[in-house]
Each structure stands twice: as C-alpha cells, then as structure tokens.
C-alpha cells in the first residue's frame, strides 16, 4: 500500500469513528428525553417537549422528614408524598342491592369519606405528616380520583393472584390510570370470599408490579361478612338500619389501609421492631366517643358526616395513639 493509500485508509477509519460517535450521542440524547437525572427535574418547553433543569427541591429535607425515637422505626424506603395522594377504587362484586350494605348508599358514603376536604386534610389525616423519607414528608392529604366497578370477573372466591388480575385488567384496559404514586382500593361485597379474610384479617395492603409500574393496592372486604371480627359495633353512625354496619366497618378498614399504604407503600419504610405499621399500633382503638342519633358511637366529624375510625400512631412526643394531630394520647 502506498503512503497516499495509507492516508485514505486512516481518513475513512476516522470518519467511521466520528459517525459512530455522532450516532451514540444522538441516542443518549433521545434516551435522556422524558427522564431527568438525579438533581434535575423536567419542565415543559411549551412545544410538547421537556428539558431537564436543576431541581432545587431535590435532596432537600422538608421539615423533620425522618424523625425517630417515638416507638416506630424508619427502615429506609419511600413514603407517598402526593398532595393529595390519589385514591382509586375498584368495587368488586355486587354493589346494587337495595337493602343491607352491598348498596349504592355504601358507595356514596365511601365517596364522601374520600372526597376533597373530607378525610384528606383533616386533623386526623395530618397525623400522617409526621412520617417522611429523606426527600420529604407525607402531605396529610388524599383524595379519591376515580372508581370503577367489576361485577365479578374473577368469581366470588378470591385469592391474591385473582385480585392482582382484576386490578391489572383495569390498568391495561385503560379504565384506571397506572399510577405508582396512588393507592388502589379493592373493595369486595359481602358475598365474596378471600382466603384469610375474617379469620385472619379485615384487610391488607401490598405492592407489586402491574402494567409495568409499582402499584400499591389494598384489599378491603365488606365487614358485614364477619361483624364480630371486623366491626367495632354492628350498627354504625351511618348505618341504613340496625345491624347493618358494613359501610362504617369498611370505612374504618379503609382508614387503616390508606394510612399504611401512604407511610409504608413498599413495605420498607415505617414499622416497629415487631413489624407493626402506624395503624397496626392503634388497631381497633378508638379513643373517646360520642353517641349518634341512632345510638351508634362516633369519634370524628368531617365532610358532613360522623365517623367511627380507629386512632393513628403519632410519630412525636414519644409516640401514642390519638385522634388528631397534636391531640391527647389514648390507650383504648
């Protein structure tokens, strides 16, 4: 090969390297779109694109984000910090009866409980603001965003895998958004069984990957299936008739599960050395009560209704169960 030929060969080689570099650089840029690096956040440019800019909020501690020494431990995982935390409901089974608690009246009551300016933002829910992670605290606000009905796609004898399938179908079908920052409540009518429901638990919460996202979901069964196990009173402050306490019973369990799904969404954030989360530490403890016109007990009033909901563990002042942020502690 002549020296000119060698030079041509080197030039072609350099051009190939340059072209390859350009291609790689372009690919990195494309991948970078829609995803901010650590310490950056995405802001819209107004033309349908977004650019990453320094995030002044990143890494900043909001208030006393992680305060410990109050009978409950922080285990390093994230909390849900939405303001409000979005709540999605899947009503499973039969919710169209005209008597009992498998009714539209129950649906309406739960809607009222989780509406804006009801449970969300209440002095009760603000107890949750004392829980945080290394980037901020829980807002103390939550709100129902959307609900759907599934009349029984997985039958009436459920187990976890069937609940997962039912929730997944709502996400992949586009009936509910796929939101890793929300909490999905799977509420079943009293004719639906779930292994362990009533004999071991009244509800539970968990998380798993569904439709490509880390979805936090909770099971809540109609407590009228086992009033002695899952209701503090068989007639609640919102019972349609004597002995029909399912709606109030479920609202108590919804309170418990939403509190925990927010402060321990991936089961690695807030719980004590025995594995008890904040609501577990006050399970079926209600504090002082008043008596409603129908004779039922209640301990909270907001959103235009009286409610009988368990206390929550306050992560301050040494820790204890109370009914409102900063209120007195009660043991039962």
């Amino acid at each position: 090969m002549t020296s000119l030929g060698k030079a041509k060969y080197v030039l072609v080689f350099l051009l190939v390297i340059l072209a390859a570099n350009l291609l790689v650089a372009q690919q990195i840029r494309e991948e970078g779109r829609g995803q901010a690096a650590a310490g950056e956040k995405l802001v819209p440019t107004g033309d349908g694109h977004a650019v990453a800019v320094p995030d002044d909020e990143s890494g900043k501690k909001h208030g006393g984000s992680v305060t410990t020494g109050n009978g409950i431990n922080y285990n390093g995982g994230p909390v849900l910090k939405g303001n409000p935390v979005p709540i999605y409901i899947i009503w499973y089974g039969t919710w169209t009866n005209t008597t009992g608690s498998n009714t539209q009246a129950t649906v309406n009551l739960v809607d009222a409980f989780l509406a804006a300016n009801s449970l969300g933002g209440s002095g009760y829910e603000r107890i949750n603001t004392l829980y945080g992670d290394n980037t901020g605290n829980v807002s103390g606000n939550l709100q129902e965003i959307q609900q759907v009905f599934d009349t029984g796609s997985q039958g009436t004898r459920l187990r976890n895998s069937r609940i997962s399938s039912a929730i997944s179908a709502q996400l992949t079908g586009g009936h509910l958004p796929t939101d890793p920052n929300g909490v999905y409540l799977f509420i079943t009518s009293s004719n639906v069984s779930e292994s362990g429901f009533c004999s071991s638990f009244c509800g539970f919460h968990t998380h798993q990957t569904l439709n490509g996202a880390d979805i936090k979901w909770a099971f809540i069964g109609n407590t009228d299936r086992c009033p002695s196990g899952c209701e503090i009173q068989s007639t609640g402050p919102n019972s349609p008739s004597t002995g029909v306490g399912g709606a109030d019973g479920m609202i108590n369990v919804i309170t418990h599960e939403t509190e925990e799904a927010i402060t321990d969404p991936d089961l690695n954030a807030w719980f004590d050395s025995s594995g008890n989360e904040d609501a577990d530490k006050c399970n079926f403890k209600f504090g002082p009560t008043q008596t409603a016109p129908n004779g039922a007990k209640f301990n909270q009033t907001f959103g235009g209704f009286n409610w009988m909901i368990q206390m929550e563990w306050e992560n301050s002042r040494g820790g204890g169960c109370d009914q409102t942020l900063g209120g007195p502690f009660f043991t039962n």
Partner: protein
Amino acid sequence: MNLCHAGLLTSLLLASAAAQEPVKPPLTPRIITATRQVTLFTGLEKTMLQAVQKKDKNALDGMLSDECFISIPKSDPLDCSDWADSVTAGDFALKSFVVRRVSVTDLGDSALVSFERVQQATHGAKNLNGEFFVVDLWRKSGNSWKLASRYVSRMEIASPEPAAPPKPTGKE
C-alpha cells in the same frame, strides 16, 4: 410391560401422590389488619407463653380448662395440668418466643386458633429450639377464655440422612 410403559406408570403414580398434597399458595408479602379475634387470641397465647417464661403456674392453671389436653404426633395425649407442671419445673427454660400467622375461626362460645410459634428453649441439657404449628381450641368460661385442647406439630422438614463417610482408601 416395556421400559417406556413402566416409566409412564411411575410418572403417573408420582403425579397422583403429589396431587394428594394440599396446594400451597405462595406467601404474599403484605401487611394485614388483624381481626379483633386475632388481636384477642394473640394476646392470650402470648400471656400463656409469658406465664411459662416466668414459671407462674397459677397464671397458667387459670388459663386451662379442666378437660384440657395436648395432642402431639406419635405420642399419647398429654393432660394440660401435667404439661403445666413440666414447663414450670426448674429444668425447663423458655428463653424467647414469637407468635406469628395467627388465624381464628369464631365459633361463638369457642374459637379455633392456629398459629406458628418460634421458640428458643431448653429442657436440662436438651435443646428444644424450633418452629411449631399449633392449633388451639379455646372455650369461653364466663368473661374469660380457657384452653380446651391443643394440637402441636414441629414445622421443620426432617433433614436428609447424613452422607456416609467415604470409604478409606488406605492412601490417607
């Protein structure tokens, strides 16, 4: 019967034997809201174990019904008062315990309670550490509950036989 048929038959037999075992659902990581009965009986079971730890025979006797017995595999039923005597005796020591996975079937004036018990204990020089599956029948007696019968089984799967020591070759 040729070798192929024999293999097929063996496979079918093995499959049918396996089918008689209960299907074990996977353990889902989840955190439950315990029922009121689970809270109540978890407390009673822990109180009973604490009485064993403290060797408080009076407290233990107060939680046992007169007809109470304990059933253990490959053993005659044990009278609960004899059991209380043995666990409060000087040479038994319950160092620590965990009660977990409690389930309660509410039967009105009685309740069927199942749970797993993990314990660290010794009886003289004998190590009694282990995990046990316990089923208790509790009966209501006035305003309190008393243990009517208990069925206990060790949970661990037996470890395989230790491998035979290698034959000496004479070259060691």
